[in-house]
Structure formats: C-alpha cells, structure tokens
C-alpha cells in the first residue's frame, strides 16, 4: 500500500494532530459567547487610534540572513547522509566533507566581511 513502510503511523498521526486544533476551534465556537460591539474589533495600538495598517512596504532586515540560511540549511541536509554512513566511509569521506565545509565557511566569512550578518 505504501512505498515506505512504517509511514502509515506518520500519516495517521498527521491526521490526528491536524484534527486536534480544528476540534478545539469548533468546540470553542460552539460554547463561547459571540462578540457584539464593533469597537472591540479595532486593531490594538497601545490604546490610541491606529494610524495606518501594517500591510505596507517594509524593510525586511533579515533578508540576507534568510539567503545565508538557505545555503547552510541545504548544507546540513547534505551532511546528514554523510554522518549516518560515516563509519563505513572512512578517511576519504572525512576529507571530502572537510573540503565541502571549508568552501562553505569561506562563503560565511565573505558574507560576514561584506556585512550581511549585521542587523542594522
């Protein structure tokens, strides 16, 4: 039935865990009182009238972090099979991973020097 055996548990648990918040939302919807006055539905801005919305053009400061993150996250994913099979691979795999990580560290140093890792 499934290509990967053992994952029927994962699918079942995914189903249960996704239903759980929906059940909670529906249950609460059934038993709670409904909101009436429209004033309650204004956006909170420390008690004053909100000035403008938040859906505006915005300088996302961590844009460069997100780029560096993608590189290192993919690196980590590549390293997982290497780590699992490491005891069978031996010295050569160690040197290969060393080269791989060194290249990425050079990239990190470059990003660091260029100021990509600064918040301000």
């Amino acid at each position, binding site marked *: 039935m499934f290509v990967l055996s*053992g994952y029927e548990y994962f699918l079942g648990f*995914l189903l249960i865990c996704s239903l759980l*918040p929906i059940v909670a939302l529906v249950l609460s*919807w059934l038993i709670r009182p*409904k909101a009436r006055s429209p004033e309650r*539905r204004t956006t909170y801005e420390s008690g004053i009238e909100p000035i403008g919305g938040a*859906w505006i053009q915005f300088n996302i400061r961590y844009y460069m*972090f997100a780029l560096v993150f993608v590189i290192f996250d993919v690196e*980590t994913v590549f390293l997982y099979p290497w*780590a699992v099979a490491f005891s069978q691979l031996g010295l050569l795999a160690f040197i290969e991973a060393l080269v791989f990580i060194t290249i990425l560290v050079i990239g990190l140093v470059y990003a660091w020097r260029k100021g990509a890792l600064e918040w301000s």
Partner: protein
Amino acid sequence: MDSGIDLQGSFIQALMDLGLPADLAKVIWIPLPMLLIIATATFLALVSTWLERKISAAAQQRVGPEYMGPLGMLVPVADVIKLLIKEDVMPAKTDPWLYTLGPILVFTPVFLSYLIVPFGQHLIITDLGIGIFLWISLSSVVPIGLLMAGYSSNNKYSLLGGLRAAAQSISYEIPLALSVLAIVMMSNSLSTIDIVQQQSGYGILGWNIWRQPVGFVIFWIAALAECERLPFDLPEAEEELVAGYQTEYGAIRFMLFYAGSYVNLILSSLMVAVLYLGGWEFPIPVGVIADWLGISETTPWLQIVTATLGITMTLLKAYFLLFLTILLRWTVPRVRIDQLLDLGWKFLLPVSLVNLLLTAGLKLALPFAFGG
C-alpha cells in the same frame, strides 16, 4: 533489555483471540498509542505551566498559585476552561484565514514531533528510520505559522514580532541541526531508539553529554531560542512589542499558541534528555543492579519495573532541564536582536561546525569511544 514487553503484539493477540481478523486488530491498535501520546503531551504541558508558576514564584519569594486545588494544581485546568469559553475577538482588519491558520501551523507540527519521542525501549509510536530528522524538519514549519500570524494580524507589533520570530528561528536552526548531526554520527543512525541505545551500558558515564559537551551547550542554547524562552524571547518582548505576533490573539486561537509553546518546551527538554542524557537509561546500569541483587535481567517483573522506571527517568531528566530553563528565565536579562543574531551566526554556527568536524576526526582516531 532487548526482549522488552511487546504491548502491540499482546494487544493484537488479545483482539484476535476475540475472533477479529489480524488486519482489523492492527488497524484498531494504530490510533491508540497516538491518542495516549497526545494526552500525555498535553498533560506534561499543563504540568509545566503549573511548575513555571510555582518555580517563578519561588524565585521571587512569593507563594504562587495556592487555593485552586492542592498547591494550586488546578490552575492550568482553569486556564484551559477560561480560554475555551472566552469571547472571540478577531480584529476587523485581519485576514481571517491566515489569522486562523497561523496558530494551527504552530500547534500541529509540535504535536506531530511526539511521533519519534521515546519514553522507553518500546514506548514510542513508531521507530521511524528518519527519526530525529523528522523533528528537525517539523520544527522548521513553525516559523511559517509565526510569520503568518504576525502578518495577517495587520498590527504593527504583530508584524515586528512575527519577523523577529522568523529571523530567530532560522538563525538557530542550523546550530541545532549541526549539533544533532554530531550525535547522529556517533550513533550511525537517525532513529531516536538507536541514539539512546548507543548511550546504554555504562550508566551515567555512557551518556552523550560527556562525549559531546560542546554540542550539548549549543543544542540547549539553540533549543531555548527555538522555544522563544528568556533570554531569547524577543518575538514577544512585552516591554517593546506588547506581545509580539500574539498581540491580536485571544481565546481559543491564543490557547493554540500557548499550548504549542509549552508542548514545544517540554518536547525540547525531552529531546535534550534523549540525545544527551541517555533517555530512559538509569544513571547506574540495570544489569549491574540486577547482578548485585542476584536476579536475572530477563525476569518478567524486573522488566515491568525497568519499563516503568524508564518512563520516570525520561520525565525526570526532561523536567530537570525544564526547571533549569525556568530558573534561567529569572536569572539572565533578555538579549538585543543584534546580539541574538551575532550569537547565532558568528559564534554558535562556527563552533558547531568545528564540533562536527572534531567529532568526525575523533571517530576516525578513536572508533571505540565514538561509536565506530
């Protein structure tokens, strides 16, 4: 320890004895451990909210909750009831679908991660081959939910909080994954069961914390940051951002965030216990105690005692870490966002890479000690 108690086998056998076909018995079995684990996870989270109140009170020389039940133990229950029956106030300017989907995306992956948490040798829903990697990948779904909640609220505090949460999560995910990688390398497996078994046999001396002290510290710092606990609770820093991405949330949707964060906290503590503190293993190996008492290790009643104490050991270790986390909350001040990112990218990331390479090198040099 290898021939533990086979709950699944005996349950299915019992149903088959009642005349049910084997396939049907198996299908009936599947949801049972899952529901049990969900109930356990919820219960553990409720206990941790109570502990948080009590320990915080003790740290500040207060009494804390006192009147609701013995020692105020019913306060978490009252919390749940209150949030369930609370009037739902959704601001008019929000995007209703994303606003609801945000907390669900935070809540579901956290519970789903319990799929691979072992409470004992056989007390795990399923021993998946990808094991710990499932947790790593599920934990990267959470920032999407936070970002969604922050953006859909159409509130400036929420937007800033959501952005900070996403920046923080992605920055600490890599050191976290890399320190897990060093453990995986020593165990030659991603399965959480194998990771614990690799630490067994020598009692407290065999635990990974001695072979991976740097990894342990990195993992714990990163886990605190992923859980948004002080000193890394910037996304909801109340002095600056009211409540961050949760500002516009109330009632049941807030409860999903709240439950998610505490379940995640106890999940991270359990993961530290499994990866570094030997999971369900005792500080003194069971074999040694059994020999000393002159009992065979495979005696049925001894196995039952061992399994029960195994759950207790796992939870004790997890709650000890939770205790340290709560104490830490009242001990250290909050870091600034640039300090937070500097710590993640300029310190933890290089150190965890060095730790990984060092582990690989030591594994080549000393294969016996590092799981060759």
